[in-house]
Structure formats: structure tokens, C-alpha cells
């Protein structure tokens, strides 16, 4: 099977946010499952591909920031906040996603996406067929809904991966003299 990103092509966001420095013992542990690491980075790259049609990059970054706020996952929230600002996100939308109440947003399309995000992050068992139906009702196409659902579900994975790897790194630092600075 071929991967769409070249192995060793560059930065790995999960390594960066979990504090796994190249060459460190925990970096070596993680990259013994390199196929997983590559497909994790590949998923991130595919979900935030600026050229992907359906949802704008800013919309995807606002969904990501809101998902990380709710989880909560502080380091990832910081990453998506920086990217959303750099991509030109509207100040009012950013404020609502970071601190406010997205159901009060005026834009019905963004409001529907963020209400869906909140349900999937906080209580996926309660997100039913009627909730899914609010997305086509807000003018979002089926392929764009697949992107949105995959994005939120990926964020549920990415936040847990960063949290777990960070805990493993801390555990190693606590017990392994070879990992001391």
C-alpha cells in the first residue's frame, strides 16, 4: 500500500505536541509503529488540505479548535487557534469558538457544524439521525458531511494520542535515568 506523504518528509505534529524529540527513547518507541505515525500525520494533512472542497479551511480549523476546547486538549487547541488566526478566521467566530456559545452564532452553516461537533465530542451516544439531518438542512453536501464527521472523529483520536504519549514521556522521565536531561 502506498502512502500519500513521503516517509521522513518532515514535521510530525503529534511528536511536536507530545514533546517527543527525535532520537529520544519515547520517539523511538512511537516510531517502531511508524506506519501508524505516518497515517496519523497523513490523516491530518488530508483533513486540513487547503484544496479540499466542501468545507473551507477556516471552517475546519474552527471545528478543530472547538473540539479541542471541549475535550479539553490545551496544546492542540493552541495549535488550531494559531492556524485559524493565520488562515484569516473572523474575530467574532474565533471568539465564539474559543470562549463563547457557538449555538448563538448568526451564521446558520457554522452554527450547525459546531453543534454537531459539540455532540460528537461530548456525548456521541446522543448524536442521532435528527442531529445529522441538521447538516444537509444547513446546505452542507454529503461529501462535506463526511469530511466534517471524519474531522471530529479524528480529533477525538488525535487528542487521546497526544495525551497518552505525553503521559508515557512523563513516566519515562520519572523512572529512567537515561531519559534525564
Amino acid at each position, binding site marked *: *500500500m502506498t*502512502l*500519500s506523504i513521503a516517509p521522513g518528509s518532515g514535521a510530525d505534529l503529534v511528536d511536536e505536541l507530545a514533546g517527543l524529540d527525535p532520537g529520544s527513547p*519515547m520517539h523511538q*518507541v*512511537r516510531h*517502531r*509503529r511508524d*506506519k*501508524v505515525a*505516518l*497515517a*496519523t500525520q*497523513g*490523516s491530518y494533512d*488530508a*483533513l486540513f*488540505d487547503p484544496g*479540499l472542497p466542501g468545507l473551507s479551511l477556516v471552517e475546519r480549523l474552527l471545528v478543530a479548535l472547538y473540539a479541542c476546547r471541549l*475535550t*479539553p*486538549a*490545551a496544546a492542540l487547541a493552541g495549535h488550531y487557534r494559531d492556524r485559524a488566526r493565520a488562515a484569516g478566521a473572523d474575530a467574532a467566530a474565533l471568539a465564539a469558538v474559543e470562549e463563547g456559545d457557538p449555538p448563538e452564532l448568526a451564521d446558520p452553516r457554522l452554527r450547525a457544524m459546531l453543534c454537531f461537533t459539540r*455532540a*460528537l465530542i461530548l456525548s*456521541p*451516544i446522543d*448524536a442521532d*439521525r435528527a*442531529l*445529522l*439531518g441538521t447538516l*444537509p438542512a444547513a446546505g452542507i453536501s*454529503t*461529501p462535506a*458531511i*463526511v*469530511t466534517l*464527521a*471524519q474531522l*471530529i*472523529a*479524528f480529533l*477525538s*483520536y*488525535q*487528542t*487521546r*494520542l497526544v*495525551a*497518552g*504519549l505525553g*503521559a*508515557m514521556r*512523563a*513516566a*519515562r*522521565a*520519572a*523512572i529512567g535515568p537515561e531519559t534525564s536531561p
Partner: protein
Amino acid sequence: MSALLEIKGFTNASLEWSAWLDKVDLASATPEQLAVLEESHPKAKVSDYYLFLVHQPEILRQRSTAFNAIMYAPGGLSRAERELASTVVSRINGCVYCASVHAQRFEQMAKRNDVIAQVFDDPHTAGTTDRERAIAAFSVELTAAPDQVTADSIARLHAVGLSDDEILDLMHSVAIFAWANRLMLNLGEPVFPG
């Protein structure tokens, strides 16, 4: 082969799954969509789940690569223990469909389902050995409160004999079901045998 379990709405019976929105029609699928279906799962072309997700083929390709590498790669945590973790996560999230599939896979590997009955009844206390209890407890913790996972959580896994390579596999198995459960729960529903 095995005893049917039906506990608190969860089962090890074989279920189907039906999408709530329009799937890709195989007859009009692009070559890329067909290639990704073939890479993803042996039955992807007759599965509502894959036929819906293949609306975005590159995203599905990456997800399937990660999923298959996490659940099926040799070495590390035993495949039965990966399936146990996936079943615990699915039980916590309330994904009856995923829980049924991975309960069956556990049973195929381990040739028993005692711990699966415990997971269905109460995932917080499940486990027939200290090692299984630690695996289940960590799976609950990383699922329900990822921000509360600390070095102490990892130390509890070391204490029952898990190596760092096994802990990485466990963590991957838990995290990938945070992903999988949300697709299965929120884009369609299980179909129970007539």
C-alpha cells in the same frame, strides 16, 4: 461456536450497519474510490460504512491505513488484548455495533468471552486478571477523561507487566476507537438480525 451474550443492550451477535445519508454508487465510483475500497477492507464494496466514507477517498485511505496497522500489526500487545481495549471503549461510548464486532474478534483470538460479559456489564471493573483489569481501566480513563491521564496511569500498566511497546499499542487501540465509534454512532445505526 460461542454463547450468545445480551447484556445491558450490548451483544456479541453479528449485526449489520445502515447509513443515514446517501452512499457512493459503485457503478459511478471513481478509480481512486474503488482503489481505496479495495485497500480498506475485504468486504468494503458491500458495506454501507465504507461506501459512505469513500465520499472522501484520501481521508478514508489514511484512516484505514492507521486502523489496520493498529489492530493487525504483529508483535507488541496481543491482538486479543487490543480487541479487549476496543470493546471497552465501544462499551463506554455506547457503540453497540463496534462492541459486537470486537467482542467477536476477542473471542476468536482468546477462545473465551468471560471478560467480554464483564465489559458489557460494567467496563469500570472488568477483567479476569490484574493485567486485564489494568488494560480495561486505562481504556476507560483515556476514553472518558484524556486530560486526566498522567505518568501514574502509565505506572499502573508497568506494574502489571506491560512494556512501553505494549502500552503504545494499547493507547493506539483506545484512540482509534474514539475515532471509529463516532463514525458508527453518528452516521448510521446497527441493524439487528430479524
